[in-house]
């Protein structure tokens, strides 16, 4: 990946943060007070609502929150199971970034000789964006082992899960890349070709680095989705966080384990989301600064 490489120009940062005018001095006081009031009101409302005692016990019991997090003699730890989600996410993400890029680039190869290749790329994205992930999981995870192939039928559930995630998400991410590639003005390619660079060199050195930089925010967005969808791998039998939570909940008749699992997912997606926001804001500033067309 060429995500690093030549860094983007350091944009001058004179513009005061949008909110700072409001948040100066008195503003901070007001926003703090209104935040406290707002959440206090919600807390009171919840506490007074009918059945709130039951909700607190079933969902937020400190005992169950803690024991589902770390596990018991008979129930798995949601936290250690969550490491499997992180593992699946990390491996899938790398494979998706590569496979999707290949698909997107193949789709851009001009010339009649490459028509079949382009067609395969188009068919691939159409197919895998249309089929629900869970069906792909079933087909790969149950179907392929059932074929009794010498090599491919003996992967672990997690591996089949990763394969299914990669197949489906690559279709989405390929489209994101493609949008990025098409957003780079043809004059950039013309300038590169005019210097004697081949089509491929122009793609590699001029078009792709700019395109990828442009699509980082939507890519991160897709990865937030991917992070959540790692939970679906549990349908193949892997005990990841959601499945571990379910096991705990079913044997203890308590849902605190689900809250724990949910919090773990949120905990890991929030930094991704904030990072995405920052990149989008940076892009916006840069566009407003009026750089080259």
């Amino acid at each position, binding site marked *: 990946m060429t995500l690093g490489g030549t860094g983007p*120009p350091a944009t001058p940062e004179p513009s005061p943060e949008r909110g700072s005018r409001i948040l100066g001095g008195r503003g901070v006081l007001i926003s703090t007070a209104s935040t406290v009031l707002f959440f206090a009101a919600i807390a009171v409302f919840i506490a007074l609502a009918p059945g709130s005692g039951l909700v607190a016990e079933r969902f937020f019991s400190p005992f169950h929150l803690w024991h589902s997090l770390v596990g018991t003699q008979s129930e798995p730890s949601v936290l250690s199971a969550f490491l499997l989600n992180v593992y699946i996410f990390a491996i899938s993400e790398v494979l998706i970034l590569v496979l999707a890029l290949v698909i997107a680039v193949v789709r851009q190869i001009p010339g009649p000789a490459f028509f079949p290749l382009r067609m395969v790329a188009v068919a691939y994205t159409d197919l895998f964006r249309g089929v629900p992930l869970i069906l792909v999981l079933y087909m790969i995870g149950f179907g392929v082992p059932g074929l009794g192939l010498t090599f491919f039928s003996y992967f672990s559930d997690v591996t089949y899960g990763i394969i299914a995630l990669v197949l489906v998400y690559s279709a989405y991410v390929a489209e994101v890349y493609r949008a990025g590639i098409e957003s780079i003005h043809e004059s950039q390619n013309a300038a590169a070709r005019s*210097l004697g*660079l081949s089509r491929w*060199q122009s793609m590699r050195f001029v078009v792709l680095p700019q395109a990828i930089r442009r699509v980082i925010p939507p890519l991160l967005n897709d990865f937030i989705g991917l992070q959540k969808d790692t939970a679906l791998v549990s349908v193949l039998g892997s005990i990841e966080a959601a499945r571990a939570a379910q096991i705990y909940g079913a044997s203890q008749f308590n849902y605190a384990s689900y809250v724990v699992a949910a919090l773990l997912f949120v905990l890991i997606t929030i930094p991704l989301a904030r990072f995405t926001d920052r990149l989008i804001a940076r892009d916006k500033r840069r566009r407003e600064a009026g750089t*080259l067309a």
Partner: protein
Amino acid sequence: MKTETSPALVLEGVRKSFGENEVLKGIDLTVAPHEVVCLIGASGSGKSTLLRCVNLIEPLDAGRVVVEGAEITARGVNANHIRQRIGIVYQAFNLFPHMTVLRNITLAPREVLGMGRADAEEQALSLLERFGLSDRRNEYPDRLSGGQQQRVAIVRALAMRPHLMLLDEVTSALDPELVAEVLSVIRELAGEGMTMLIATHEMGFARDIADRVCFLEEGRILEEGPPERIFTSPENPRTRRFLSRIIAAGRL
């Protein structure tokens, strides 16, 4: 194939259409080594298209392009090789915004000519030095003025050591006060004997620098000749009309 006597560039019956719109209707033009030819003509007359056809960025519909005795429109010619010897500079600069000035300039020498990094950078720096840009080498294009960007674009083309330079209205996108710095670079190149084909709206500049001026209208060269004659006593009534409009607009 290259002989001392072959012209730098020969165009024969070059035609080009975009759909129904025939933009070049048979262009014949010969440029001698070290000659500077200026293309003038109204907007839309086909100047840019002609220049883009010369380096095959735009494929021709008919006709031949011969560069230093070798027909580049022949079958089986590798257009990438041809483009290495022809530098082109566009109106909109088209620098690579994600690369520093230095990297913009060294990219093609390194990737296309296979120059080592040190050599490519040394060459780039000496070119930048010559055009008063060496302090900008680590800047990104969007931190430069239009005039500086255009000079970098010229340097980038020169770094491939072209035998022929094509300039497409390189000052049209510039604020008036930045035009002079770019024109002086082109004058310097002309002084060194660079062969150039220049599309321009700067008639005063064309008169100074050109060995020959071609007036293009609706995809044809209607009149050509030395600038003294074209600008003072054009024969074709349409050339006369075009120039009087230019004079009325205060651009000559």
